[in-house]
């Protein structure tokens, strides 16, 4: 008697067995993009495991945070590896999440009936950025300290609620140990709880609705024709596992050859070091805000920028409801163009922001 048989006797697994046996993944030229979601999920799991291990030694206070990370990377057995894996997988995760987002955007996989999958996915992308922003401060080093000052300052520019948001984020008027406590709470409790729930919803929807087929492929099918399917188990899941192993190999190489620097401990009385800039995934936003004039038509430039980005975020969430042509299964060049412009903007402004002084 196998474990599955033993379980089947107690918990009726017929439904699950049937689902696994019948589930297929449509075969077409763009099917490679499907793996990005699985790789992102895998990195999220890596984040959880390495994060839990770091929690064993990390101490969230302005007096001890830096020293505790220093202890992790120098004294704890394989602590350097865990910290490097956590830092690198966080960055790869956000990179892959963006890639997944754009692949879904270009393939119009958000169209009916997958609107809620898209909404949950975009919210997850925002949550990943929140993880990045809150986690960046936790080592309490100089760069992170001043970048957080700038970042929370931008949040303070939100009209009406800005000053409240700034104080809420910082736990006072300035970035202090209170900010670190808040960011720690956000990073290890609030965000993981919301993200886990949303990931569950996202996965449930993906499994329930199956993989989307690109509009072009779908339109080429004759009435009644169905695309050939690859069995999800084991053919597709093994490909997923293969992709995960490739990610592990990349992560291990990055951790060993490009270790994440700890920098110098944050000192609120120290002068602002040159070249303060946020993490790469905020560079495009940061550089755009820098380029906006101080006043545009009598409105404060920073307010305008922050409101603009807020509007863009809302529009992104609502894309499936705005793209009516795609929802009818028709080609939607306007939204393809929007996706292309968005990608071009993000890549070019990230590069410009990186080299800007």
């Amino acid at each position, binding site marked *: 008697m196998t474990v599955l048989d033993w379980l089947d006797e107690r918990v009726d697994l017929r439904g699950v067995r049937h689902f696994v046996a019948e589930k297929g993944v449509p075969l077409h030229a763009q099917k490679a993009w499907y793996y990005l979601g699985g790789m992102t999920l895998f990195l999220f799991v890596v984040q959880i495991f390495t994060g839990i291990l770091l929690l064993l030694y990390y101490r969230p206070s302005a007096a001890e945070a830096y020293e505790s990370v*220093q202890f992790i990377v*120098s004294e704890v057995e394989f602590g350097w590896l865990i910290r490097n894996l956590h830092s690198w997988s966080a960055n790869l995760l956000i990179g892959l999440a963006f890639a997944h987002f754009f692949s879904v955007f270009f393939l119009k996989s958000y169209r009916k009936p997958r609107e809620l999958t898209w909404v949950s996915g975009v919210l997850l992308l925002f949550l990943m950025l929140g993880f990045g922003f809150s986690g960046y401060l936790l080592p309490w080093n100089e760069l992170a300290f001043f970048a957080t000052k700038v970042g929370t300052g931008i949040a303070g520019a939100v009209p009406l609620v800005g000053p409240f948001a700034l104080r809420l984020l910082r736990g006072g008027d300035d970035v202090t140990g209170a900010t670190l406590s808040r960011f720690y709470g956000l990073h290890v409790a609030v965000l993981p709880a919301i993200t886990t729930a949303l990931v569950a919803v996202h996965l449930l929807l993906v499994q329930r609705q199956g993989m989307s087929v690109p509009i072009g492929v779908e339109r080429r099918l004759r009435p009644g024709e169905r695309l050939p399917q690859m069995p999800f188990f084991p053919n597709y899941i093994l490909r997923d596992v293969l992709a995960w*192993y490739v990610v592990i190999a990349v992560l291990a190489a990055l951790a060993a050859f490009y270790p994440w620097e700890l920098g110098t401990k944050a000192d609120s009385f120290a002068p602002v070091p040159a070249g303060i800039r946020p993490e790469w995934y905020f560079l495009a936003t940061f550089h755009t805000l820098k380029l906006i004039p101080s006043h545009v038509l009598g409105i404060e430039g920073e307010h305008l920028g922050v409101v603009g980005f807020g509007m863009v975020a809302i529009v992104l969430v609502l894309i499936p409801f705005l793209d009516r042509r795609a929802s009818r299964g028709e080609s939607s060049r306007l939204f393809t163009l929007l996706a292309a412009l968005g990608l071009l903007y993000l890549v070019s402004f990230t590069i410009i922001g990186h080299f800007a002084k």
Partner: protein
Amino acid sequence: MPFNVWTRMSARRRLAGLCLLVAMPVGASRAIAQPPQPAANGCIACHAAQTDPRLSAPAALFTQPDVHRDNGFGCVDCHGGSASATEARVAHAATQGFKGKPTGQAQVATCARCHSDAALMRRYAPRQRVDQATEYAASVHGQRLANGDHNVATCASCHHAHGIRRVSDAKSPVFPTNVANTCAACHADTKRMAGYTLSGGAALPTRQHADYRQSVHYTALTKRNDLSAPTCNDCHGNHGAAPPGVGAVTNVCGTCHAVFAQKFAASVHQPIFDKGCVECHGNHAVAAPSDQMLTAGAGGACTACHTAGDASDKGAAAADTLRTGIARLKTEIDDAGSLIRRIRNAGIEVSNEQLALREAGTKLTLARTEMHRFEVAPVEAILADGMKVVESVDRAGAKGVAELRFRRRGLAASLGAILIFVVALGLKIRQLDRRDPGHGATPAG
């Protein structure tokens, strides 16, 4: 006749002058209750209209930032006369206490009237000293002036007479970065300095400013903006300006380089070196010190008295021993620093080693300081301590290199294992695909 300008003024200027006169009593009554305000006066109105720059420049300068004007003082406080008179003849009348342009001793006395009055100065600049005039009287400038030499510097030569700024104002001629230029205005002027001699009878040199501009002190002050770096007045004094005598040089240098002075005072050279520190380091053109100075060979500071290669010259041998020891510690620190930087860049935590290297650097500085006693044994003891610290860093560095090797070997092994697994998985997937290339397709047509 420059003084009866009022009569020659245009109607518009007269009106402006009268307006000022009307406004004056109001200002005066306010001055009792409020902090002093710049005094409105007829002197400015009248002098500003003069075509002779000697007469108009003071009015123009006094309308710019001026510490006296900002504190409510007016022209008459130094020059006497009447600011309310409408005619130059009345304004400049001797009965009004008009003194004209004070020069020489009169100028010093004019400034000292307030600046030597502790009670008065307490109202405007409570922390300012009030002994400048006394110091000046004791200075070379003051003594020469008392002997009738009107070519020497008085208060206004350095501080200016009008448009005077606080010493802390970067535009002030006596702000640290400007002092050398201010002194050089006279001391680098060969014509002006002609006839002046040093105490030994030699002509007073005029190269001091050019030499100073080559010095490590000038670089620190003007290039690194280190306002604590010395300029002319830090060694020669300002109000009590005098060249430090032969016996006082070490004391002057020692005000900043206290430990060096202390070590030198205990050295065998102290009774021999007439010019103290200057013997090796020079005075105005003090160059950045280097370990290479410590030799009786070429380029060394010991050459004048010691002979390189002379076995009987104990001083030359000691200099070589000191220089070699110091150079060795420096090289060891540099090498250890390179190693630590390399493994830090590779991700090994080295903050303890960086701290230790800083300690070794302190030992090197201590050795270089102790060297001024010119005794080998104490320096060698410090160098030995420094070497011990460097050795501990080297050991940690070697451990770091081993750790790096371990990490990379571990990575290579795990990457190999991953590769084997990926290949196996790929083969398995291929096998599965062959068995079931895709199902559920509904053929078209």
